[in-house]
């Protein structure tokens, strides 16, 4: 089920009303109902993969208990390794099988051997990367003693399958979500109203910004050979806004929906395009994934401890793995590598921990830094969006070798006006968790509602061609 579909618009109020009106006095029933609703939500796409989700849930629930009850460190470790192996095995098969086979065949061909490879028509189960990482974080936290395993299967099942975050995150932690699942929840007007506001903003990001940018970005990337340098640069910028609107929009809707049920999810985006350097960008973009890799990969590898070479190695590993997590294509690995290269000068100079404050203040120097960082990010997105590495390099070649100030006539000027308004609203609301949060401080109700209706009207009148959420494919 998609958040921007009619199905979901009908699904959500039904679940909301039953949850608060029928089951409000019984936590166990509420949790059980939410898990059933989550399975319906997931099965709407393809019920066959529901069994995979259930298996993965059971596996991590069981291994969590086993790790906790084992007396010997070696047994604990064996359970951990088994869980990680099976989880990554599924992920590897569904997501990377063909990639590895084809890459291996390509490698053999380079060596002069002809290989008849056996590829499979494997369908990628929606959300597998997300719920696998949920499960992994749980067993790792149990192993490191950060969390006590729950004996209640429904509670654990809800932690993994909770529908707002099931298919595209945010990637939750047991330490954050599980306690919320286990304690009674009460309805708070302010929390629910805030949730609706965030849903509205998420819809705007997705339907107005992402879908409109996607139309032009697709046109440019699909026929990049026919365009001049400036058009290709605009294409990269539009894709940058598309992916931000798409993913940040999805996260906003997910967090907002969850607030309606009295559950707070982790913040996933914090105005990443206002970052003043690439390190800050990575503290603001897909925060739940970045922090996952930091806690479960970077830190166990040694993190910032040790010599410079070790730090560089760890940085490269985390970025390459992060790229590979996004998909089975060399373009994602190149995207990760390029970000690591961007990161390197900051790391070497020891300046990767600057700009830790949330709100960048307005100054010419800051604007220049933000502009420069944004350009770097856009260049990296070219790898992310291209079909293959050759195309990505070709895109760069044309972008830098056919300079022309001829503005592409097929791009509507309205899209730029829309982006300017969007950026201004985001800038004005950058002190909040999402751009519209501060609207709640407008005490005049008609004025506040006028803002909401304006956003609704813009969603109605300026919607782009409907596109599937990009992160569904991951």
């Amino acid at each position, binding site marked *: 089920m998609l958040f921007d579909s*009619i199905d979901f618009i*009908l699904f959500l109020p039904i679940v909301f009303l039953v949850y*608060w009106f029928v089951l409000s006095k019984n936590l166990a029933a509420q949790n059980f109902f939410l898990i059933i609703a989550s399975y319906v939500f997931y099965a709407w796409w393809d019920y066959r993969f529901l069994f995979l989700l259930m298996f993965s849930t059971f596996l991590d629930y069981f291994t969590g208990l086993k790790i906790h009850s084992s007396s010997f460190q070696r047994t604990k470790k064996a359970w951990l390794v088994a869980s990680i192996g099976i989880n990554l095995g599924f992920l590897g098969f569904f997501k990377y099988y063909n990639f590895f086979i084809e890459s291996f065949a390509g490698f053999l061909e380079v060596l002069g051997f002809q290989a008849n490879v056996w590829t499979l028509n494997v369908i990628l189960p929606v959300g597998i990367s997300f719920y696998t990482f949920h499960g992994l974080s749980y067993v790792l936290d149990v192993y490191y003693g950060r969390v006590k395993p729950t004996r209640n299967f429904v509670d654990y099942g809800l932690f993994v399958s909770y529908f707002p975050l099931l298919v595209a995150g945010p990637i939750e932690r047991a330490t954050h979500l599980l306690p919320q699942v286990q304690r009674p929840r009460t*309805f708070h*007007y302010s929390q*629910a*109203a805030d949730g*609706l506001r965030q849903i509205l903003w998420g819809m705007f990001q997705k339907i107005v910004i992402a879908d409109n940018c996607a139309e032009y970005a697709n046109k440019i990337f699909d026929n990049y050979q026919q365009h001049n340098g400036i058009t290709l640069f605009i294409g990269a910028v539009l894709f940058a806004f598309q992916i931000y609107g798409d993913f940040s929009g999805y996260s906003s809707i997910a967090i907002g929906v969850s607030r309606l049920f009295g559950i707070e999810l982790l913040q996933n985006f914090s105005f990443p395009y206002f970052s003043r350097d690439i390190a800050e960008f990575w503290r603001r973009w897909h925060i739940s994934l970045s922090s996952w890799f930091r806690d479960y990969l970077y830190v166990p590898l040694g993190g910032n401890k040790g010599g410079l070479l070790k730090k560089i190695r760890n940085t490269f590993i985390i970025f390459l793995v992060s790229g590979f997590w996004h998909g089975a294509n060399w373009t994602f690995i190149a995207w990760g590598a390029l970000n690591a290269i961007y990161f390197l000068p900051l790391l070497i100079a020891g300046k990767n921990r600057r700009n830790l404050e949330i709100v960048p203040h307005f100054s010419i120097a800051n604007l220049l830094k933000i502009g420069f960082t944004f350009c770097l990010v856009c260049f990296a997105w070219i790898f992310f969006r291209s079909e293959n590495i050759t195309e990505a390099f070709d895109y760069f070649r044309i972008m830098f070798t056919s300079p022309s100030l001829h503005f592409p006539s097929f791009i509507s000027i309205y899209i730029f006006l829309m982006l300017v308004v969007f950026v201004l609203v985001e800038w004005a609301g950058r002190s909040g968790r999402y751009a519209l949060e501060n609207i709640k401080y407008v005490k005049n109700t008609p004025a506040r*509602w006028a803002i*909401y209706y304006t956003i*609704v009207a813009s969603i*109605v*009148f*300026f*919607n782009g*061609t*409907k596109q599937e959420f990009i992160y569904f494919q991951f």
Partner: protein
Amino acid sequence: MKRFLKKITLFILPLFVCAVVLEIMLRQIPNDYSLKKEFISTHPEKIDVLVLGSSHALRGVNPSHFDLKCFNASYVSQTLDMDWCILDKFGPQLIKARYIVLSVSYFTFFTRLKSSEESWRAKNYTIYYGISDGFNIKNSSEVLSSPTNVSIDKFADYYIRKKSIVTCDSLGFAPRKNRTTKNFARLGLKTAKRHTKSGELFFENLRYLEHIVQFCRRTGKQLVLFMPPGHISYRKHLKKSQLKKTIFTADSLTAVHKHVRFLNYLASPVFDDGDFYDPDHLNNAGALKLSNLLNKELMADMKTHSITLNKPVSR
């Protein structure tokens, strides 16, 4: 909670009222589907030949060039399941109809409206033809099935700008101007690629065609399948296996059923560059040629089968 529900109701109510008013008013706007349904259901006696199929039939078969009373009920992206639904619903009223003419294009056995890019058109069959689509709310509503700005544009066109959205003539044909200015080489490749599909829908579509074949047999109608002409820029990029499978299937049906005929005009030399609107659609000049060819076939068939026609085949 009460405060929350009260506020949210107050907020949504004006939006809901606007949506309902829009829905009602949009349904009042005459369109190609409502007019076609109106004609078939109110004038079944005026139909000797019923044309079904996709845009290839819509743009290619002009009923006014037929000697028999012909009506074109085909439409853009109308797939075999929809053809069958129309025939199933309105066929029993078409007592006088002698021929069902159905376009069998390169993609016919491999596509289905509801799973195609044009799936938003599916609502027209539910709303205007009254063909049930189970419990599919989206396909039962104008507002829910199309982007709102498209619905509002449609509303403004009809009620404010006083523009009609009807593109078909009174016999269901959608004329197109004679022009051949498009880049056929590029478009031909693009269109052929778009029409080349995997075979997963083949058997399902074949089943729908068999329903149509059986219906014609039961009601004593002749089923004329025709493959519409395609420009060389389109034909040369078609996948051989898909084309072969389509032609073989149509040929097989004619071999098994006496009341089924298959006419293949895909590479007919009768059509030249000036007859195409784009690589896979005819313009008015091309439609005239194709309609004349079909008419000739039907008239010749009338002569040979005039005695047996319109008599149901006994089971």
